[in-house]
């Protein structure tokens, strides 16, 4: 018999019939409408404000490579400084470039590097001065503890050596607020989450209602069915992402430097990917309740690993490959490029749009094949 035999006849009108039905159902679902409008607002507040921390003081990153206890204590003792301990210099660089840190100090046994944001000179000077005075204090302590050697080296020579210890690097940050960097990712997240959950539930219902079996015994092909869903949900994705964009840009002041239509292209591709992913995973759930249990498995990793809240570089290396197969990583990257840097379609074609396209195609095929004709 014909287990894996796809009916590949494709009739656009039949796809339209499925799409229209999906839209009618979504339209009637009050939760959906609520989710579309309130989810972005709640998420912006949650991630934008809560994660941005206390921005009133100077936020300084510290990469502790060993030694320099006195300098560390000195920096820690400064009231205006919030110290954030980081794993590596590249993390520090990234966060300074993104404007999330005002600067960073990298401690290494025989060198101290200070990373500063060239766009905010005043804060940079404060940080540099603090580092220098800390280093001086450290040197003084060192000399005190070695009284026997005090006569050997000239004091001024040591001081200049101390000054040489500090290497200063200036970086050019975007000078953006946390809210700005989070905004584009929220757009991606809201669309992904909504589409994934709704699509999984819809497919579960098709199965439990018996309508899936009715489809199977009709001229509708599986490709047409999944395509109809993609089309129907895409219209909702458009509506939803437009709402979210308005909330994010007008409500929270996130810039939109690029073309909003480019952002919509990214979001549509992401939504289509989430839909086929939801359809695929619906095969592994027996009830709507079980779909909810996918959230920790499918949604949370995307939030944690997409590189928005903290840089991909700070994700441990053995987990990082996962980041590179998650669609939200690419969508977040593309949306930030479009909204914050004004990138056009060609700028984000590779790897972002390409990766999203591949993700969609792979799961479209998987979802279609999983809609099995025969049971048992």
């Amino acid at each position: 018999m014909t287990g894996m035999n796809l009916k590949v006849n494709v009739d656009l009108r039949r796809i339209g019939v499925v799409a229209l039905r999906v839209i009618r159902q979504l339209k009637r679902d009050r939760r959906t409408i609520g989710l579309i409008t309130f989810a972005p607002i709640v998420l912006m507040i949650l991630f934008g404000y809560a994660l941005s921390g206390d921005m009133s003081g100077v936020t300084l990153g510290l990469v502790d490579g060993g030694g320099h206890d006195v300098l560390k204590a000195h920096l820690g003792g400064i009231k205006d400084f919030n110290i954030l301990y980081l794993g590596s210099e590249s993390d520090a660089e990234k966060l300074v470039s993104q404007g999330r840190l005002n600067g960073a100090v990298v401690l290494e046994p025989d060198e101290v590097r200070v990373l500063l944001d060239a766009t905010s000179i005043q804060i940079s000077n404060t940080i540099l001065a603090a580092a220098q005075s800390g280093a001086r204090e450290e040197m003084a302590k060192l000399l005190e503890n070695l009284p026997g050697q005090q006569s050997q080296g000239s004091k001024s020579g040591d001081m200049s050596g101390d000054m040489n210890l500090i290497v200063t690097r200036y970086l050019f940050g975007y000078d953006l607020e946390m809210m700005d960097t989070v905004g584009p990712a929220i757009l991606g997240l809201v669309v992904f989450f909504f589409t994934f959950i709704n699509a999984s539930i819809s497919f579960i219902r098709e199965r439990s209602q018996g309508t899936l079996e009715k489809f199977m015994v009709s001229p509708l092909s599986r490709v047409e069915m999944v395509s109809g869903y993609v089309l129907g949900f895409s219209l909702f994705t458009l509506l939803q992402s437009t709402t979210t964009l308005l909330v994010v840009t007008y409500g929270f002041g996130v810039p939109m430097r690029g073309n909003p239509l480019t952002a919509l292209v990214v979001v549509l591709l992401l939504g289509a990917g989430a839909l086929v992913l939801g359809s695929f995973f619906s095969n592994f759930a027996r009830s709507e309740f079980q779909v909810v249990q996918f959230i920790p498995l499918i949604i949370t990793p995307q939030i944690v690993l997409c590189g928005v809240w903290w840089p991909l570089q700070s994700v441990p290396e053995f987990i990082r490959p996962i980041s590179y197969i998650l669609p939200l990583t690419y969508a977040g990257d593309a949306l930030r490029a479009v909204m914050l840097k004004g990138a056009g379609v060609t700028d984000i074609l590779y790897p972002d749009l390409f990766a999203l396209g591949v993700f969609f195609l792979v799961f479209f095929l998987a979802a279609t094949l999983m809609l099995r004709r025969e049971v048992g």
Partner: protein
Amino acid sequence: MAYDKSALSLAVSARGVDKSFGRIKVLDDLTVDIPRGVTYCLLGPNGSGKTTFIRAIVGMLKLDGGDLRVLDQPVSEVQSIYSRIGYMTQHKALYPDLTLQENLEFFAGLYSIEKQEREPRITKLLDMVNLLEHRHRLAGDLSGGMYQRLSLACTLIHEPELLLLDEPTVGVDPRLRQTFWNYFDRLTAEGKTVLITTHLMDEAEKCKTVGYMRAGRMTAVGSPDEIKRLAGLKPHLELWLKEPEKDAARLKDAGYEIDEVDIAKGVVRIRLQSHDQIKGLLENVAPLDMRLKEPTLEEAFLRLSEAA
């Protein structure tokens, strides 16, 4: 396997069909012919494999063995004739969050029915299932029986040649049931075939042909009358008599088979060999009242399954 010519006029023809789920044999060497243009009833208790057989007909199951042909196509090719088949699942497959009209529009769309054709059909079918006034209500707000009726309407929307209805009348009131049967008669008069499953005997009485299924096999096939005859069941006649004892003796002498004499009530029960015996009987006695009791299909199947 070769088919004889007569098989060409069959709507469904099964030869030695086997299907197991795990170690349970659900269809066991099932052989049945369903001619075109009739209402055929697949009768059997719950779990006898009726739904499984219907799902096999529409190609939703991988068979373990045997041959199955549907509208002259081998079941492996059944996809190519889906537009000619109407399938009403036991689960009444509908969208509760769509209105009746929207549900019907959707199923019409799947079969590419043009808009000008669609509306009159929707109206006609909603009228037939007596739901016209609820046209714009949500299907989810309907009662169980109404839901059932809408499901039937959705199955009929593309005017299929072969209708497979899995327990279509559960929860439908008797008067409306009769409407359904009249409609099925009209369909079969047009040459269409209606295959109905049921576990209710009185339902099966209305069909021209009944196949009795038990544990995945067909144990008896025929018209309800034929099946009763096959089971050896005879009609009974109850006579209310002034002198039951005396009359009973007289009837016995005349060759009638006396089943029971109830002196207190004045009733004599006679087992008839045929209905023709009634006339001769009246020449022997003058009953105050009489009642003919036909054997039920239920009794027939009970007898048949006891014998099996």
